C-alpha cells in the first residue's frame, strides 16, 4: 500500500481524468462536431451511420448526439427496443443479427447507429436515407484536445504543476486508437508527480 499520491491527487483533481466516465461526462468531453448530423436528423426517415474500428469514437459521437438531442433515446443493440416514434441512437448495431436490427429500428422515425462495418445498403433496403460518417481521429491536434478536455472537465483553471505525461510519446505508440490512448494516460496519471514525464 504505497504512500505516494498519484499525480491527479497531487494536482488536486477529484479523480484520474482518464478513468471511466458517466454518460453525461462522456458527452460533455466529446470533441466532435455533431451539428451537421443534428441537421441531417431533422427529418423523419433519415439515419446517421457511424462506422469505425473499436476505440475510434463512435460511442462518443452517440453521446454527443444525445446531449444535442435531449429527446433521443440511446440504447445498445440487444437491449429492449424503445417505443414508436422515437429518435433512436443505437450503439453496437452489428452485434445482433439482421432480424434483431430490424426490430430495433422498425418503430424509430429517425436514428443514428454505430457499427464496425458499413451497413448503408441494408439500411437503405429498410427504407432509410443514410448519411455515413467514417469515424477516426488521425491528427495530433485533435487527439491533444481530447486529452486536454478530459483534464479541463475536472480542472477548469490552470493546474498547479505540469501534467505527468509526454503526450507525443503516447500518441506515437497508440496512434488513432483513443481507447489505448486513454489506457496509457490513465496509467501515467496514476504515477506520482515526482516520476513525472513518465515514458509510456
Amino acid at each position, binding site marked *: *500500500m504505497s504512500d505516494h499520491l498519484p499525480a491527479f491527487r497531487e494536482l488536486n483533481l477529484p*479523480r484520474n481524468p482518464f478513468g471511466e*466516465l458517466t454518460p453525461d461526462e462522456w458527452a460533455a468531453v466529446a470533441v466532435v462536431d455533431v451539428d451537421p448530423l443534428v441537421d441531417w436528423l431533422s427529418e423523419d426517415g433519415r439515419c446517421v451511420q457511424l462506422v469505425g474500428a473499436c476505440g475510434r469514437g463512435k460511442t462518443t459521437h452517440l453521446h454527443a448526439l444525445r446531449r444535442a438531442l435531449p429527446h433521443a433515446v440511446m440504447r*445498445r443493440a440487444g437491449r429492449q427496443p424503445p417505443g414508436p416514434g422515437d429518435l433512436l441512437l443505437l450503439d453496437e448495431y452489428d*452485434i445482433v443479427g439482421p432480424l434483431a436490427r430490424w426490430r430495433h429500428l422498425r418503430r424509430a422515425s429517425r436514428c443514428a447507429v454505430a457499427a464496425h462495418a458499413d451497413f448503408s445498403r441494408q439500411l437503405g433496403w429498410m427504407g432509410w436515407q443514410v448519411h455515413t460518417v467514417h469515424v477516426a481521429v488521425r491528427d495530433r491536434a485533435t487527439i491533444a484536445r481530447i486529452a486536454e478536455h478530459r483534464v479541463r472537465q475536472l480542472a477548469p483553471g490552470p493546474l498547479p504543476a505540469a501534467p505527468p505525461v509526454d503526450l507525443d510519446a503516447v500518441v506515437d505508440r497508440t496512434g488513432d486508437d483513443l481507447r489505448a490512448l486513454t489506457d496509457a494516460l490513465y496509467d501515467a496519471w496514476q504515477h506520482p508527480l515526482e516520476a513525472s514525464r513518465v515514458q509510456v
Partner: protein
Amino acid sequence: MSKCDLAVVLEKPGGTFGPGDTVVGMVTVDVNQDCRCNGLTVTLRWATHGRGNRKTRTFATEIVFTGDWKAGEQHLHPFELTLPDLVSPSYAGTLLNLDWEVYATADIPWAFDPEASSRITVRVPPGVPCDPGPEFTQSAEAVATGNSAVLVITAAMLVLIAGVGFVIPLGIAGGSGPDRAEMAIVGLIVCGTVVPIGALVAWMGLRKQVAAKALGDIRVSGPTGAVHAGEEVAVTLGFTPPKAMTGAITATFTGTERCVSGSGTNKRTHTHELLRLEQTLRPQGTFDAGAPVEVTARFRLPADIAPSFEASENALRWEITLDVDIAGWPDWQQRVLLHVAP
C-alpha cells in the same frame, strides 16, 4: 448560463468521519434567473471511480427546499446527514477508488439540473465492523474453469456433429462409389477435428470433479466472519485419499483490485494485484491410501491492509487459494474469499 449555481459547504471541510457520525453543512444557491425548484436534494453517498464503471450508493437524503427563486438572490440551506453504523471506508487504489461525498442537485423544470458536491473521508476504527459492499458474499468455492454443465453440453453437441459427419459417409444418407469415398474423407476430417475439441471441452467441464476424486472426502474450513488488520487468518484443508498419490499442497494469499469497464463488445476486466504471499503446506511427497491429511495455512494480515469491497463491476478481493498439485492427475484448487476489515 445555468439558472442557478450550487455549492456544498461543510462545517468540517475535507473532514474525517466515522460510522454513525453526522455531517453538517449547507448548500448555497446563487440564482441567475427566475426559476422554479421542484426539489433541492442533498444526499450522502459513496461513489466509485477509476478503471471500473462508475457506481454510487446513497445512504441519507434530505430535501431542503421546494419553491421559487428570483434572479440575484442567494440562499443558504442547512442540512444534517448521518452516516449509517455500518459503512465502507474511503479507499484510494490503483484501479479502484471509493469516495464519500455530500451531493446536492436542484430539480429545475426544462433546464439542466445544477449539481455540486463536497468530498469527505470516512474511516472505520480498528476492530469496528465495516460494510464489505452490496455484492459481497463470503464463500469458499472450488475454482472452476467454467460452467461445468455448459461445457459438457457443448462437448456432447460437438460429438454429435462428429457423429453425423461420420455417419453420412457410411452411406446411411445415400451416395455411392466415388461420392461415398469423398464423403468418407470429409467425415474423417470432421471427426478428426471435432472429436478432440469435444473431448477437450468435456475435460474442462469435468476437470474439477475429476481432481476432487483423487482426494476423497474434502473438508475446508476458514473464518466465518470478518478478519481484521494485523490478525492471523487460518484456513484448514483436510482430505483422505482413497488411493496412494504423490503431490504437494500450497496456499496463496492474494489481494486484488478488479474492475470492469464498458459493456457489450467493449467490456473489459482490469486487475491489479496488491499482495501475494505463498506458503508450502506439504512439500512434494507421498500421501498414503486411507491416511487422513490435514494442513492449515496461516497468514498474518498487514496492519494497513485495505478492507474488502465488492460492488457491481468494482471489487477489492482478499482470498486464500488452496492448491493440491497431484502428480499425473489434474490439480485441485479451492478459493476462500475473506471479509477483511480494518
